[in-house]
């Protein structure tokens, strides 16, 4: 299993849609074969179409607000007294998280395909909020599938979805979180694929959805590459890019331009959700060595039992609370290009407190997992090491959880 250079990772799959010969694919019911084939053809066409690309760039700049800032966290760096810590503040993007890139592209594709209805899944509520925004912007009717547990814990984003005119469909099956939302969204698509476009909220699902999402979030690392050259004149010699990993869309977007570099030069670190410190449940299939399985139409490392039943997961972060992960991250793990670890709920909360104590930054619980790892390793590293954390979401949505869990003094 080997990575190729000079080809985007999203395109390094074989003709059956597998990365590294075993991750990804399209395990779908017969009914979805045709809509997925249509979508695949359309995307192939659009990504080469100059007019479409111009349109995409226009909306990325004027609607999403690219580029997002790249800043040094001086106080936090001084406090930790090791590596320099920087942040790519992707939460500045319109709506407050990276999910806007994928949502905007899907809305544009939906328009191009002449469909009037768009559906999507959401965990933290950002994917849903962004899809509802894009739907409103482009005149599409929008339905969002969301676990009942997540609807309760991410209320601010649900309010936003409703304000944008989207219908939230609560999902009561299983653990009532993201995994159930994705299943229910796919079921709805099976029944309505003739007039409805489906957006998968991360780099998961059947092959084509991994590709579209990765292609969209790749904007983040394109910006970062230019910003690095601007700030440091060239790409720093010791660089570490730390990102939280739920499905893996922000991590892929943050890393895509840097995958071809040597890992001694640019280390890629993915941080999964370790769940509550004392709980056996987690959402960390990569770092806690889950076996390969098939979930939501793709083969990837999946938290599951020996019979292939998908495990319930638990995390304080709704966005990371998912038993599967992108096939492209499985590929990056097995080729050893990226290193994956996890942070517990408590570590993420501590990191949130430390970051907000020192900096004018308000990372949501998802990127707080990435900050936890940065805080852990920075003190041991030299001052010329540059750690960059993708601060990919804003904590406004976590208002209630933070209030409950943090006793401030």
């Amino acid at each position: 299993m080997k990575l190729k250079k000079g080809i985007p990772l999203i395109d390094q799959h074989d003709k059956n849609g597998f990365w590294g010969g075993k991750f990804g694919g399209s395990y779908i019911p017969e009914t979805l074969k045709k809509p997925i084939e249509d979508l695949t053809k359309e995307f192939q066409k659009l990504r080469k179409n100059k007019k479409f690309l111009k349109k995409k760039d226009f909306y990325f700049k004027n609607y999403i607000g690219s580029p997002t800032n790249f800043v040094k966290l001086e106080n936090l760096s001084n406090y930790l007294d090791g590596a320099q810590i920087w942040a790519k503040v992707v939460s500045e993007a319109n709506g407050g998280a990276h999910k806007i890139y994928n949502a905007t592209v899907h809305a544009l594709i939906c328009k191009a395909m002449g469909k009037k209805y768009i559906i999507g899944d959401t965990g933290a509520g950002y994917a849903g909020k962004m899809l509802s925004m894009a739907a409103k912007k482009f005149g599409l009717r929008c339905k969002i599938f969301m676990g009942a547990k997540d609807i309760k814990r991410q209320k601010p984003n649900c309010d936003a979805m409703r304000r944008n005119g989207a219908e939230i469909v609560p999902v009561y099956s299983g653990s009532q979180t993201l995994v159930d939302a994705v299943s229910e969204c796919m079921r709805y698509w099976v029944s309505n694929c003739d007039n409805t476009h489906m957006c998968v909220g991360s780099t998961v699902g059947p092959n084509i959805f991994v590709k579209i999402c990765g292609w969209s979030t790749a904007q983040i690392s394109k910006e970062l590459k230019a910003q690095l050259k601007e700030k440091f004149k060239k790409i720093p010699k010791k660089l570490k890019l730390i990102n939280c990993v739920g499905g893996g869309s922000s991590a892929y977007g943050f890393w895509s331009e840097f995958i071809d570099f040597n890992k001694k030069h640019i280390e890629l670190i993915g941080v999964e959700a370790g769940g509550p410190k004392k709980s056996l449940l987690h959402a960390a299939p990569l770092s806690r060595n889950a076996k390969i399985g098939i979930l939501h139409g793709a083969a990837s490392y999946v938290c599951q039992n020996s019979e292939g039943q998908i495990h319930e997961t638990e995390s304080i972060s709704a966005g990371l609370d998912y038993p599967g992960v992108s096939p492209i991250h499985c590929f990056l793990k097995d080729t050893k290009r990226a290193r994956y670890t996890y942070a517990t709920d408590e570590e993420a909360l501590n990191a949130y407190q430390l970051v907000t104590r020192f900096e004018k930054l308000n990372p949501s619980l998802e990127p707080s997992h990435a900050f936890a790892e940065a805080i852990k390793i920075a003190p041991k590293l030299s001052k010329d090491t540059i750690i960059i954390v993708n601060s990919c979401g804003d904590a406004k949505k976590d208002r209630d959880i933070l209030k409950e869990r943090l006793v401030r003094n």
Partner: protein
Amino acid sequence: MKNSLINQSFKNAKKENRPALLTYTVAGDNTKKKSLEILKSISNYADICELGFPHNTPIADGGQIQTSAYRAIKNGIKINDVFSIVRNFKKSKKDKPVILMGYYNMVYQYNENKFITKCKKSKVDGLIIVDLPYPENKIFAAKCKKNNINFIQLISPTTSKLRLKKIINDSHDMIYYISMLSTTGGKLKVSANEIISQYQIIKNHNKSKNVVIGFGITEKTIKSLKKADGLVVGSAICKEITKSIKKRQNTVTNVINLVKRLKNKIK
């Protein structure tokens, strides 16, 4: 697979001038013992018994089958129990074909080859793997055939003409036509005429294949699709089981009565 039990049961139904009746129940719903009992008793009226091996993330199933599956899993059903249900069933009903139906992850975790061997040992007649479509299923389907197990291909209203032809060419004794764009358990939203005309297109490609229609078939709709080689009823039966449990009535009796009524409608 010329003298397969599946082929034979279609022939028998044809002799009686009616479509074959295929029932779907979930293994272990609501207990192992009960589901075997249900299977045995409905097989007196059904021509082919489909038995689901329950998965907890079934992306193509609607509410009724999900409920049955979650119930069975909660009561501890394991893949090996599913095989033992079939083995026990076959002890007294050796001529009744059984088709196992489920999702690929469970086959994958069990190991494809081991799964097929176990099917053969338990006398499973056919397999439907919902999320392993053509052509991804080619290798697996060939392995099944080699072991005298029917791999059942699915065709849906979205299947293109070219694809249809290829799928039929690659199919074994039976083809499953999904009546409409829906998960299981949806309400029939397409007219019977429309469904039958799609069915006829499949038939016209190869008359020797037994084509069954499933999804949205209930006591209300079954008669209108009588022309098909076979008709599959699943969610309606699962719903009956749920209802019986809720009302604390005898599940077996209620399910037998439902299957009898279904059978009467297509006689």
